[in-house]
């Protein structure tokens, strides 16, 4: 393989990895964020305690989180086929990634939002704020720095999950690393892919930290 071929291969994997990571993260947030908020609000110390709802959703989240991703990847294939039309390729990997990441995000959001000072919520209640107003005017804005940090951690976690997609013929850098490095014993190509993955994680995490700090008004 020439350097040119390697460059082309890397660029292709890089694009696919970013595509899978960002589409999955965004979609998973659309599902996971509301679930996390419901978990917070219905908690026994929340603004609208509801043990039944909290118990059921909490149970589902825990079950999904305890299934190893590699198994989930295969188990949800019928769903993937129904949604994307195929079980192979980057788009097909997005489905299991979203299913795995949404419950994870729900817990991340829940823990971020629970950091919001109880006193501030109480003050809002004393002003006559409704539960909905408290969620979008108090909990989300006040937890913003922590939510952003959580998003950086989530994105890098989804990135590393996406690397497993190669096992079922997904795409991306992980797929290339497994195909060339493991099946064809071309260790050098595998190392290149891993280095690129490491670089992406570093950049994403640093960017997340920076954005979170910039958004935190508690810092003078």
């Amino acid at each position, binding site marked *: 393989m020439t350097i040119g071929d390697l460059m082309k291969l890397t660029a292709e994997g890089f694009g696919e990895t970013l595509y899978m990571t960002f589409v999955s993260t965004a979609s998973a947030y659309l599902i996971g964020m509301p679930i996390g908020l419901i978990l917070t609000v219905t908690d026994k110390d929340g603004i609208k305690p509801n043990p039944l709802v909290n118990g059921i959703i909490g149970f589902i989240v825990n079950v999904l989180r305890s299934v190893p991703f590699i198994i989930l990847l295969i188990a949800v294939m019928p769903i993937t086929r129904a949604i994307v039309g195929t079980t192979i390729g980057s788009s097909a990997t997005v489905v299991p990634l979203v299913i795995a990441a949404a419950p994870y995000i729900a817990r991340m959001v829940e823990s971020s939002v629970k950091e919001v*000072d109880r*006193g*501030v919520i*109480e*003050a*809002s*209640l*004393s*002003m*006559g*704020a*409704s539960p909905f*107003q408290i969620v979008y*005017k*108090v909990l989300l*804005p*006040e937890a*913003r*720095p922590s939510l952003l940090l959580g998003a950086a951690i989530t994105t890098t976690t989804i990135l590393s999950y996406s690397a497993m997609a190669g096992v079922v013929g997904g795409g991306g850098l992980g797929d290339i690393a497994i195909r060339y490095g493991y099946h064809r014993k071309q260790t050098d190509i595998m190392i290149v892919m891993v280095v690129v993955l490491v670089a992406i994680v570093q950049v994403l995490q640093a960017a997340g930290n920076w954005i979170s700090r910039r*958004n*935190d*008004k*508690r*810092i*003078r």
Partner: protein
Amino acid sequence: MQEDYIIQVRDLHKTFHTNNGSIVVLDNINISIKRGEIFGIIGLSGAGKSTLVRCMNLLEKPTSGSVIVDGRDLTSLSESELRRERQSIGMIFQGYNLLMQRTALDNVCFPLEIAGVKKKEARTKARQLLETVGLADKEKAYPAQLSGGQKQRVAIARALATNPKVLLCDEITSALDPTTTQSILALLKDLNQKLGVTIVVITHEMKVIERICNRVAIIDRSHIEEIGTVDEVFRRPNSAAARKLLYERSENIEKFTGNGKLLRLVFDGSSADRPIIAEMVLKCGTLVNIAFADTKNIHGKIYGQMLLQLPEDPVAVNRILSYLDSEHISYQEEA
């Protein structure tokens, strides 16, 4: 005519259920607060005073009894009615409870947003209020950039934004230094006079009550021990709890006295502002030791107490006692 009460707490009980059984926090509380007054509720920590004030806007749901604010029984309202009613009851907290990710101005706008006031209108109102509390130049500052006193001023402005009828203050000066405490109390008194807003102050500090309150309730171990004007309660504390709060500082100092009998003089606001002890010493021709003295000037009258160590000569003691009688100063001999 019937008194115009803005808050009436009737037969209020509150019990907390914990894993170790039930704890009665408030037991048969009855309080009526007049429109426009500054009403103090004082008690040591654990007495139930914070729970009581939180029952006044139903942040804490009473186990039984009613809370009537401006003629409406809060315990009978639906959730949305209660939310609307809460907009006319401002609350300030010991820990400020400001939104840390909002500027001072946006914090004051917050209750207006909740009430559905247009943004432009809200900003104008918030600017006026920041000016009222003396923070016109800090509107763009975030809470993290403000001092404790400044944060509490923002919290006061915020509580006033919806033109509340009542301002509930839960230990609002307890985290502040004495100078800042004085300026916050002066601000409250000023707002009470200018806006006519009724203020309920919860505190464990007697000096807060002295400084701004018209009437005071003393709460001890879940009960209201005594309610009256600050003058009355300071002059004739009926309950042990009141005496404890009033004389708290003197109790330690007694130990440091010597042999002679101790006499506690009580100044009840009626004695003239002149050097009574010096006159007594001159007229009776005998010396006394002042073991302790604590007098306060409340609304221009002298209140307080003094602990004298009397001479051992019984004749001199009699002369002193008859002098005090002639001056109408109440006293009692200490064991």
